């Protein structure tokens, strides 16, 4: 979901992190049932409290590892290749119209 800015509160309550579940669920495009929301919030707070331990590890001069192979960019020639898969791909669409994926109306009326 990438990096996004949202104005939610971060409280540290004796090592406990308050997890603003509705805002996160909104970012993650998940609608949650009320009962589910309570349970998930509790679970996530206890997991976040557990990962708080990392704060004790000194990492001032440590480079982050995003990848173990230390890869450089991998390039290939920009050539066209035959790729006749349109029908096979569209066959799996939950909803199609002709050669397009069909989605519900995007622009809603005021």
């Amino acid at each position: 979901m990438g990096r996004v800015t949202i104005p939610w509160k971060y409280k540290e309550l004796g090592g406990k992190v308050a997890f603003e579940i509705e805002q996160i669920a909104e970012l993650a495009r998940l609608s949650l049932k009320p009962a589910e929301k309570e349970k998930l919030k509790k679970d996530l707070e206890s997991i976040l409290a557990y990962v708080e331990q990392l704060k004790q590890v000194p990492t001032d001069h440590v480079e982050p590892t995003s990848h173990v192979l230390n890869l450089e960019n991998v390039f290939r020639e920009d050539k066209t290749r035959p790729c006749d898969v349109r029908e096979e791909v569209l066959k799996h669409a939950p909803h199609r119209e002709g050669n397009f994926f069909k989605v519900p109306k995007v622009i809603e009326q005021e």
Partner: protein
Amino acid sequence: MPDSSLTLKEAIALAREEGPQKLIDSLAKRVREVDGKVNAYIHFDPARIERNKAAGLLHGVPISIKDNLATRGWETTCASKILAGHVPPYDATVVAKLRQAGATLFGKLNMDEFAFGSSTETSSFGPTRNPWDLERVPGGSSGGSAAAVAADEAIAALGSDTGGSIRLPAAFCNVVGLKPTYGRVSRYGLVAFGSSLDQIGPITKTVEDSAILLNVIAGHDERDSTSANVPVPDYTQALKRGVKGLRIGLPKEYFVKGMDPEVEAAVREAGKIYQKMGAEIKEVALPHTPHCVAVYYIVAIAEASSNLGRFDGVQYGFRAKNGSLREMYFETRDLGFGEEAKRRILLGTFVLSAGYYEAYYRKGQKVRTLIRDDFEKVFKETDLILTPVSPTPPFKLGEKLTDPLTMYLSDIFTISINLAGVPAMALPCGFSRSGLPIGMQLIARPFEEETIFQAASVYEQETQWFKRKPKL
């Protein structure tokens, strides 16, 4: 002895002599007899098994595949409702390689939904049960793969491993599971979970079978830019080398208070066996081990939440019926994903969001570097590391399902290996007094799977644990 109990090596010989049909029939019969109890397969239909006519090493040999690997013409659902009925139009590279080698796809195996779990209980097709004790879990997430091989419902299988998902089930089911070096095997066509951690590997009855399958699936693939362009040796050549002079380290952080004494004793006994065979055993330190679960549940979950962003009901898979586009997205994801997937999506979204990115994600990546450095240091003075796979023998169904953190902690001995990108194998190492399998883990330097095969093979020959079979 029924053909279904053959090792891969024996099955290759049998298919060559008698053709594949007898083998496939025997295996299908076994699945009909026992899979009602084990639930290892989620897509299995003998009528759909297409005989592969390609000549090759695996000609006619049936191989079973974890359901997160794309198989052209076969459902690939990751045991999730959001991919129900999905049939990919292409093969994963490992599947294509198996077919080129002559193998016949036999069926698709159960797993935790999207490989999120350590017990195969989060599958939307119901849990897989451990063939050694049907009240216990087979481990996860490749629980279907390990249970099928252990129960003689598969000759050999492929699984995937992001934090232990091949090795934990292998240990819990008394079979051999290898997580190759990151980049050793192409991930093209593996439904992504943690892209910097995921690897595909063989789950087999013996160490030799593991080498045979790795020979087939390893290698560079231009379709996966993270697959490494490193030559692939013939791994079966390493099996007879012995361990004389090999330096094997036992990290003290892997023998912790609270672990099961029978597991500790079994793994220490393996160390003594190696010593008797001429290896040098020494204590080593991997001091950042206690932080591996915390790092993993930041890094892996961040990657998972972004990988699962693609499931939006537009191009394939399940779509909720009503409402506007926005409502459709929310409903599709709510109805399509199970609870553990939602938990991980939410947590990953949180640790990647601005304001928390530095404190969690970046911090996690830095501690990952320290974990990796630990291994680099130890491998300057040792050739292999020997550890347990899990602190306990297989646990009961439902025992850890309500407390996610307890479930996550069942991976404490397997997670660091993925964070460091090194190869590791789980193999049988004995049984508890109550008859439950215990596994041990051999870890090597990057791209030195041969050292693992070398040591695993002599231990297996000496102990022969693989010959014990569950009663079903």
